[in-house]
Every structure is written in structure tokens, then in C-alpha cells.
């Protein structure tokens, strides 16, 4: 339960971080909050030769509105974001989801960007980023590229970030005031990883669903947003029957995983239960 030896550096500029990543590649690992990385190092599932501590880059600890976008920097911590009135007003789905993210001591230290890069399949924020259509800004010594949340999450602990890149910022479109949102999760204890979670937004106009976003996590190898299910919702009048149909389709279409926490049948039950609950709440919250 002790990490393998490593070299440690704490740069004070982003350029220095990117230079070190370019030089050391796979042998190096960035540490922000460390709330997922350090357990993996303690178990020796992760054995970086070089640990690059980005906690010295205070300028990356921000979240602010930039036009129609909520931008969140690499060092913004869960505790700050979960308590933020700005986040609550611009993207209330994030605030609701934060009620399920870890525990106080972990939220004090952990960062949103670190959480996304860890890409735990049962984590809350990847599903939220999918639903909100977030863009992730990756930077390396060679330049910058932007990827959508859909392209970003690639499997268990796997993302689009290459060994020479760092996720420097998340850009989230400010939620349309007409959209209703909902977040539903079942876990063994509050704050634990999800056995299943559903995140959704619904835009209801003239009594019919105009646009829908629906994502799941904790049920397969990554957070997934399912366009075919969203298509079934669009144009329809919100109803329990409709939501139950979509839930059944979700339980059938997702390649549901099983582990010691929950078997496949139970996770499918959770999908069938949580989906209508989330969709009904999102519809109720949507402006008429």
C-alpha cells in the first residue's frame, strides 16, 4: 500500500508542464487533486517514473462565464464548483450531480478536469459533460486541440488525451433556460461510485419534446450518450408510457457490465427504474 519510488517536480508555468510532458511522455503523470491517481499509485496499479504536480499553477484554478459558455480550468476543485452559485445558475445539472460526487475531504482536493481524465466508468461528471455537450481543451507543447465529450471518453480509464497532452479547460455551453434537467443515481452509499446513473436534459415546447439529451454511467465501460434513445423522445408528448418505453430500450441497447457491486440483471433494473424518474423530473422542470 505504498507507492513505488518516483521523481517529483512542481512547475510554476504551463509551458514548463508541457515541456516536461513532451520530454517524458508515458513515463510521466500529471497530478492535480490526486484523489484517483494516488490510490492507484498506492496499489501500484500506476507507477509513473515522474510525477508532475500542477498544483503550483494557481492561474488554472478558475471557473467563469465566457459569453454563452461556462469555462472551468484544470485546477478548479469539486468543492468550489459544487458550491458555486455561478455553476448553479448556468448549468444546474452539474450542481445536482455534485450531490452524488464523493465525500467532503475528496471534493476539497479533487478537480473536475482530473476526474474527467481519470474516466472512471462509474463516475458522475463524464455523463454530465456528455449531456451538456462539453468541449475539452487539450494542450501540448505543439499546440492546442479541442475535442467533444463524445470523442473524449474512450473506455475504462481511457480518454483522447495523449501522453504529451494536458486537459487545460472544459467549455460547457450555458444551459437554455427552457431546458429541464435531472440527475438520478443509485450507489451502495451516498458518495460512492454509481451502480447506475442517468443524466438528462429535456427542452419541451408547445407540449412536445423539442430536444433531448440522455446519458448513462456506471452501467458499461464508459459514460454513454445514446442518440437513438434521444430520437425516440423528440417530437413526442412527455408521458410515463413514453419514458417507460425509452427506459426499456435503454436497458436492452446498452452493453451492460457486471461486477462484485451489481450483476447485469440488477443494473438493467436500475436503468428501467431511474430513466423514467429522470425524464419525468426533467420534463416537469422544463418551461412549458
Amino acid at each position, binding site marked *: 500500500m505504498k507507492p513505488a519510488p518516483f521523481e517529483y517536480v512542481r512547475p510554476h508555468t504551463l509551458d514548463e508542464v508541457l515541456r516536461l510532458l513532451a520530454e517524458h511522455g508515458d513515463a510521466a503523470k500529471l497530478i492535480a487533486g490526486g484523489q484517483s491517481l494516488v490510490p492507484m499509485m498506492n496499489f501500484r496499479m500506476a507507477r509513473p517514473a515522474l*510525477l508532475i504536480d500542477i498544483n503550483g499553477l494557481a492561474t488554472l484554478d478558475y471557473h467563469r462565464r465566457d459569453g454563452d459558455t461556462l469555462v472551468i480550468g484544470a485546477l478548479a476543485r469539486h468543492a468550489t464548483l459544487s458550491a458555486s452559485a455561478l455553476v448553479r445558475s448556468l448549468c444546474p445539472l452539474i450542481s445536482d450531480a455534485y450531490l452524488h460526487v*464523493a465525500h467532503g475531504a475528496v471534493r476539497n482536493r479533487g478537480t473536475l478536469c482530473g476526474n474527467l481524465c481519470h474516466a472512471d466508468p462509474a463516475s458522475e461528471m463524464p455523463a454530465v459533460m456528455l449531456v451538456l455537450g462539453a468541449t475539452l481543451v487539450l494542450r501540448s507543447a505543439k499546440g492546442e486541440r479541442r475535442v467533444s465529450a463524445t470523442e473524449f471518453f474512450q473506455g475504462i480509464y481511457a480518454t483522447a488525451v495523449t501522453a504529451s497532452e494536458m486537459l487545460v479547460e472544459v467549455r460547457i455551453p450555458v444551459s437554455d433556460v427552457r431546458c429541464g434537467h435531472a440527475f438520478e443515481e443509485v450507489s451502495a452509499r451516498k458518495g460512492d461510485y454509481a451502480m447506475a446513473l442517468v443524466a438528462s436534459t429535456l427542452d419541451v415546447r408547445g407540449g412536445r419534446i423539442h430536444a433531448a439529451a440522455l446519458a448513462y454511467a456506471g452501467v458499461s465501460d464508459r459514460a454513454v450518450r445514446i442518440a437513438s434513445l434521444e430520437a425516440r423522445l423528440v417530437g413526442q408528448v412527455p408521458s410515463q408510457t413514453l419514458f417507460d418505453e425509452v427506459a426499456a430500450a435503454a436497458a436492452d441497447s446498452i452493453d451492460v457490465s457486471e461486477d462484485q457491486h451489481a450483476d447485469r440483471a440488477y443494473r438493467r433494473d436500475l436503468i428501467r427504474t431511474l430513466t423514467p424518474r429522470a425524464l419525468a423530473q426533467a420534463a416537469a422542470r422544463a418551461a412549458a
Partner: protein
Amino acid sequence: MAHEQIALALTVNGKPVNRRVPPRMLLSDFLRHELHLTGTHVGCEHGVCGTCNVEVDGKVVRSCLMFAVQVEACAVNTVESLGTIAKLHPLQQAFWEKHGLQCGFCTPGMLMTAKELLANNPNPTREDVADAISGNLCRCTGYQTIIDAVMSAAEAMRNTELNEVTSS
């Protein structure tokens, strides 16, 4: 492969500390093995049990999920900073009176977590307390007496503050 030790200067429980540490030394091990502050307990060493919770720059963190080198120039407070045998902190007094512990293994983490809760929320509900300590495992008490203790300490601390305000 030789791994260099790194010079570390910080404040622990109000006192300056200077040491050289290997990068891989966990903050929890630094506190216990280097500073002999064994009040901070080590349970799971992967961030689940909360018994190693300490305060770093005013925020409660898991000391098994930080490296000692990361607290350079920080102010760290451990359970030893709370009270003395002769003068217990109101939380320690309340844990004693309300049977907030049996074996006592989880208590340091519970106390540090409860201290942060009461600093942010001096008048919590039982639900607030349950939520705050949800990241701290206790295998003895069933938690109810811990919640009793934190509620009792909150009341005592509010009364002390009130007395201080009215007497000044």
C-alpha cells in the same frame, strides 16, 4: 535508481517543521513516522475510510492521498491540534459524553471532519452531520452516537460563542 530527497518546510499544528523526505512518502506516513504524531490513523490507504483526515490550509483532506512533498509551505493541523487531556476540545468532550466512540480508531478522522463541518455550518441538522461524516467509516457505533456527539458539540460551541459575545 537513486531518488533524491526533497527539502520540506511547513507548519504542523502551529509549529514550523523542516525535513527532507522522499517524494513517495505519504503525508499520513510523514505525520506518523517522521513527526510521531500518531493521532492521525491509517486505515485503508486508498481514500475510502477517512480515518487519516487532516486539515491542510484550512481544508480537510485525506492524508493518505497526498504526498508529504505536496504540503510544502502549507499549514497542516492534525487531531493533536484540537485539545489536551486537561482541556478537551468541545468536540472531544462531546464524543466522550455521548459515547461517540467505542474502539476509537475512526475518531481522529471523525473529529477533523466534524470540526470543518461546524466551522462552515455552526447549526447543522442531523442530516447535515450524517452527510458530512459519510466519507468516514466507523465499524463500532452505528454512527448515531457520533451524530449525537457532533450535535451536542455544535450546541456547546454556539453557547460559548454567545457567552463571549454577550460578555464582551
